[in-house]
């Protein structure tokens, strides 16, 4: 824990424990009795009246100690006490995530930045197989393959393996035309059956991989000339099992959603991922614009075909086996972000389920592992729980509301206010917004930062989508058959449009 974290924790503790100023006692109710026939004094000032009781004295600002109220309880006091402790747990979690956001952002702004592998310019480069999973990608697959063929990497050390997973459009035809034009450089895998899904396709393709390194690009991605070398360079470090580059939205200016996602992506990569890299924590492999060492993949048993988020799953399985994921912030690649809210909601829900699945599988093992440092354990746990925070936050609001209406105002006032403050800080005002603002600043953008307040809309949508996905996940856990399907994000680009 560094100095900054200690100071922030100390401030919070001081705030919680300091005595509150003496509360003003409300004047006794001036219940005047009006005699029959007496003239009404319309100018008389009445005492304030509230449906809630007047606020009694509390022992401190947050009301941890409270006086029993003499009235028949609607909900037993024991239950309310339990609710209160749950609420405090929620507040603590929210507070931890808030501090995490600040820590990462300040590190990114003022800390030492690590790009140790970026400068590996000349080397005996390892062999690389580039995998391009594709399911009905006729609009974009040609651009991706063409861009890969033009990269600055020794051609005899690189193969391109398009994974055509049961496409029903012209994807197969387009891939085969490239195979004919560039014999030996493209080795396709056309799947017509088997378990659907990207992870299953990757698992099947892994048998074809003979290279030291496998890189993965989604079919709508457009790698630049130097990208393959940049993504391969970290693998000279024998501790690195996977690498992740930065994705940059290409359809930024389409509408409000794309503009919000552009800023959100900036925050996630420019600040979150790079801060983790700086601090030797757990940068996350993101499933595309990245890669994995074949030996490391074999050591952990290959891709799991039964997971929704093969990227998160891979990150944690590698970590538990003592392999690191390296993040390359300057290895940038364009991607398309969703342009429609329903598509975005589906995407978020898919990520949520995959992430929660990984949390369920690996949180305990992460805490027990002897191959992972304490910092990595804490960061890894926070990363696993990031999608769980939305339902937890909503749960906190429900708890606070219950307490507010059933036994509330005397000792709840401080708690409620604190939750509101923390929720606002996390969702809207400072922590996340600060992170996004810093990312936009680091990216050198200027005007787009004005859109910051509208991000609240995006966060609210995410909050609801994540909560819905989590609830659905609880329900499906009890179903006898849990089927996987390739829930592909919609593509918007026209063929050839992005390379111009």
């Amino acid at each position: 824990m560094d100095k900054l974290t200690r100071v922030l924790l100390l401030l919070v503790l001081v705030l919680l424990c300091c005595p509150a100023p003496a509360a003003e006692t409300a004047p006794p109710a001036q219940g005047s009795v009006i005699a029959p026939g007496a003239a009404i004094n319309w100018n008389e000032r009445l005492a304030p009246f509230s449906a809630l009781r007047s606020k009694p004295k509390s022992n401190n600002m947050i009301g941890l100690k409270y006086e029993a109220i003499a009235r028949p309880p609607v909900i037993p006091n024991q239950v309310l006490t339990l609710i209160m402790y749950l609420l405090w747990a929620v507040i603590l979690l929210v507070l931890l995530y808030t501090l995490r956001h600040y820590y990462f952002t300040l590190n990114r702004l003022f800390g030492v930045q690590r790009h140790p592998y970026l400068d590996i310019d000349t080397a005996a480069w390892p062999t690389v197989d580039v995998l391009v999973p594709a399911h009905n990608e006729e609009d974009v697959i040609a651009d991706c393959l063409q861009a890969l063929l033009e990269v600055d990497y020794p051609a005899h050390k690189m193969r391109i393996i398009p994974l055509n997973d049961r496409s029903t459009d012209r994807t197969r035809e387009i891939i085969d035309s490239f195979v004919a034009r560039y014999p030996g450089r493209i080795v396709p895998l056309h799947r017509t059956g088997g378990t659907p899904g990207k992870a299953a396709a990757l698992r099947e393709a892994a048998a074809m991989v003979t290279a030291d390194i496998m890189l993965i690009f989604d079919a709508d991605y457009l790698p630049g000339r130097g990208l393959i070398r940049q993504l391969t360079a970290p693998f000279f470090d024998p501790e690195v099992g996977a690498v992740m580059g930065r994705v940059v939205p290409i359809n930024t200016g389409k509408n409000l959603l794309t503009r919000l996602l552009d800023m959100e992506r900036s925050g996630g990569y420019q600040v979150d991922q790079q801060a983790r890299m700086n601090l030797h924590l757990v940068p996350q492999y993101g499933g595309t614009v990245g890669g994995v060492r074949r030996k490391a993949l074999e050591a952990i048993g290959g891709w799991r075909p039964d997971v929704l988020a093969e990227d998160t799953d891979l990150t944690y399985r590698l970590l538990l086996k003592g392999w690191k994921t390296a993040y390359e912030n300057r290895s940038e690649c364009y991607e398309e972000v969703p342009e429609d809210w329903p598509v975005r909601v589906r995407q978020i829900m898919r990520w949520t389920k995959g992430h929660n699945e990984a949390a369920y599988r690996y949180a305990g093992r992460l805490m027990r592992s002897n191959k992972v440092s304490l910092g990595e354990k804490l960061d890894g746990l926070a990363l696993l729980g990031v999608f769980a925070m939305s339902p937890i936050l909503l749960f906190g609001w429900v708890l606070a509301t219950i307490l507010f209406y059933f036994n509330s105002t005397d000792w709840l006032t401080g708690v409620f206010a604190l939750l509101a403050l923390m929720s606002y800080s996390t969702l809207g005002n400072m922590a996340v917004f600060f992170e996004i603002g810093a990312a936009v600043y680091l990216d050198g953008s200027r005007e787009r930062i004005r859109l910051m307040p509208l991000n609240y809309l995006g966060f609210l949508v995410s909050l609801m989508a994540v909560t819905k996905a989590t609830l659905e996940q609880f329900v499906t856990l009890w179903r006898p058959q849990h089927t996987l399907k390739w829930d592909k994000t919609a593509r918007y680009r026209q063929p050839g449009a992005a390379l111009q």
Partner: protein
Amino acid sequence: MGQDGALPPARGGAAVTGHAIAFVLLCVLLFVLPLLPALLELRQKRDAAPLKVVREYDGNIKHFANGFRQFLGQRFPGLIPDCAAPAGGPPPAMDPASYQMAAGDGSASFTPAELAAHASARLLIGTGQLRLGAGMFYEKEVYAGADLLGGERNSFRAILAHGDIRLGDDCSVLRWAHSDGTLALGQRARLYGRVSAECAIVLERGSRFGRMWAPHIGFGPAPLPAAIEPALRARHPLAEPGDILDQSELRWLVSGALTVPADAVHHGDLVSRKGVSVGDHASLQGNLKSNGDMVIGDDVHIDGALVATGRLQIGRGCMIRGPVVCDGQVVIGSGTVIGRADLPTTVTANEIRVEEGVQAHGTVWARDVGVVMPLRVAQG
């Protein structure tokens, strides 16, 4: 009516409705006001372009040299061999006052004002060999169609030579330099930008550098010191450390500090979660990683990469085949060879200190500063 206690005249319903509407409008205004910049940006799209991802630029060290070569070829037809004509027709001719072509004997001529200021703001172009005096600051690029021979204390913005570049002591290059042959600098050179050569770069003691690339980079005077010990020695296999965490895929992951004793030999990667120390004459066939400081003894052979998150000290007479990557400071002892002529590699660190007598093949990239140190005299 008209008596005490009578109800005051009721206000009109229209007035109440008006106040309510005004109140609602005020609330809406207060809500929208902070969002106004966002809504304006959303409508006007002043900063809605995707972040710039330069797809064509691949970080090639010769990027600027190639650009300058193309620039000269287009503006001075015939000057640069095999230069493609510009796609959109010939560019506008340059102002004659903005450049000078060197005389037939290859020497530059300067105006009295330039001589007085010890600086020239003109592009200097030598069609063949170019000879330069001493003590000038060339604010624009310098090109030589053959060798470029410079005196002492010159400063250059950028240099491109079709032949060798040989400069005297105390010269500096501010942005970039490229030689199609060998680039040799005198003592105490200052190379702030990218420096590359197709054959070799030779730096003398006291020189400082940033990013360099050449098939062969020599630091200090040749010949190199002889190897400290014969290469062929009796070696013993490295014993398995007690605190090993993982040993899958020919990789040993060690939780504590790793010590490789002298004369040890090992085949496979070694990763330590703390520091690493390698004794003299050891031989490692694999990559070596330290999450802390790393000390490599003398006459160590490593057929792989060295990666350290702390400081890295490489002894004398070592042979390192793979990339050397360090988050902190690297010190390389005399007689050490990094990379091979047929397998060039990279040395990269924040600070690189190189003793005279070191050779590297490929890239040497000091993110903050690199320096050539005089050969230390062995103690005792």
